[in-house]
């Protein structure tokens, strides 16, 4: 994990330098690049492990999720939400669920988020004033919820059973292929699949009805 830790430190240091002295972006980028390259050469054996990739993707996922909430520009928020969804797809890939990974990209990053972008373009939203900090109940609720979630995370991390779920060769070669996924969806879980599709159709008809009613 030395490589990942080092890279995170380099990125944070670069961000800090950028914030303190915004005048020399190219110099900062070059220095950061050299430091990152040195780390890569020194700890290149980390690259072959799943730990490094899981950590990198996790870091990117958290970073992009933070940007979604914090950034004042709605378009940047949407884009980093897309990055976040792609990170989730990469997690599926690490878990050897390859079909699920690519479906995640098609359905969420490729189809649903296009509609988000579309709506933002249509509404012509200007940059908002950024993250507003709520008052009273909202603030205390957020603090309590955040603390609770942090405690839950810590507890889960302490009691985790290693991470053998990501080791290569743990699953059969068939695992995660389109064939095995389809077999499960239309075999063992066929009722749930069909129920979900009926539900989606009902929702779609309802949406059309609501949209039509407003017209007349």
């Amino acid at each position, binding site marked *: 994990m030395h490589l990942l830790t080092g890279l995170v430190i380099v990125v944070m240091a670069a961000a800090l330098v950028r914030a303190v002295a915004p005048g020399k972006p190219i110099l900062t980028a070059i220095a950061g690049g050299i430091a990152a390259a040195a780390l890569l050469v020194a700890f290149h054996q980390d690259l072959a492990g799943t730990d490094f990739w899981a950590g990198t993707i996790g870091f990117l996922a958290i970073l992009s999720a933070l940007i979604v909430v914090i950034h004042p520009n709605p378009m940047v928020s949407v884009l980093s939400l897309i990055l976040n969804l792609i990170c989730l797809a990469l997690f599926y890939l690490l878990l050897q669920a390859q079909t699920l990974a690519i479906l995640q990209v*098609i359905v969420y990053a490729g189809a649903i988020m*296009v509609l988000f972008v579309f709506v933002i373009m249509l509404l012509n939203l200007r940059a908002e004033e950024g993250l507003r900090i709520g008052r009273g109940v909202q603030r205390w609720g957020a603090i309590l919820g955040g603390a609770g979630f942090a405690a839950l995370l810590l507890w889960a991390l302490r009691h985790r059973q290693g991470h053998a779920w990501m080791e290569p060769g743990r699953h059969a070669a068939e695992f995660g292929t389109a064939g095995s996924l389809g077999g499960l969806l239309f075999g063992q879980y066929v009722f749930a699949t069909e129920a979900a599709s009926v539900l989606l159709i009902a929702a779609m008809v309802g949406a059309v009805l609501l949209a039509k009613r407003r017209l007349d």
Partner: protein
Amino acid sequence: MDPRLPALLIESSAKIALIFFVNLTAVAYLTWLERRVSAWIQDRRGPNRVGPFGLLQPLADGIKFIFKEAITPPQAHVVLYLLAPVIIFVPAMATFSVIPFGPTLELFGRTIPLHVADVDSGVLVILGLSSLGVYGVALAGWSSNNKYSLLGGLRSSAQLISYEMALGFSIVGVLMATGSLRLTDVVTHQMEHGWNILWQFPGFLIFLISAFAETNRLPFDLPEAESELVAGYHTEYSGMRFSMFYMAEYANMITASALAVTMYFGGYHVPGLQALNLSPNLAAIVQVAAFAAKTAVFLFIYVWVRWTLPRFRYDQLMNLGWKGLLPLAMAHILWVAFIVLMGWA
């Protein structure tokens, strides 16, 4: 670490470099082909000054693009403005990685399959990557802060979503016949059972029309309709950034053509090649050449159609996509399902 890993890495990098080089060269010469064929269709001469038959024209164009001033509009969102050409270019290049362009080659005692990645859900990878290209167009339109760009970006995202549906449904027929999402399986199935075009012509037609729309080519080039939107989503771009949009468009054309060949025209299959008793490597080279030739035919059709048909109106575009192609594609799925069920395929 796996001891086979270094050799595999070298092999894959070599194939990626080869595909990148061939694709970029093909893109450059497609611009030449486009101008020569359009000139031929319109009874002009076309570029014929730089090199024999104007063959060095793409090189001159490239040098010109590099030395042009790269303008960034003062009111643009700079980061997204610079990111947009990259977002559109990367998926356009990456989609080719799962398309098999030949059988295996025996080199240095290794059996080298002629595709970068043989992914189990290869078709989905292509659809997924190409669906990410929409963001490049939409972002270019939005970040330029120009009403023509914005309209072009909006139109384009609507168009791409609409025709993605028909494109996806038209492929389902082929996938049902093959019983696999793996592109190498699609090719080997056609080798054994005949090309899909022989009995899936409606599906092929829907695929071709949707592919024209997906690549923003005439008669579906509304996102950049020059008579109403100046140049649409890339109005504000200049220099190499502008050329990246064009390179992405032509790279998408190449991928779409290669996909059409793989899906419906047997991929790299050459009928009757086995009767010639060629050595395996020579046969592989012949098949790669056949694949390139088939793809080139489709690229010519792209250019041919562009200079033959006028642009659709926007409502015609939407009607064709949603009320024409989509129901047709669904009917085609039923028809193919019936044939597969009866065991006639």
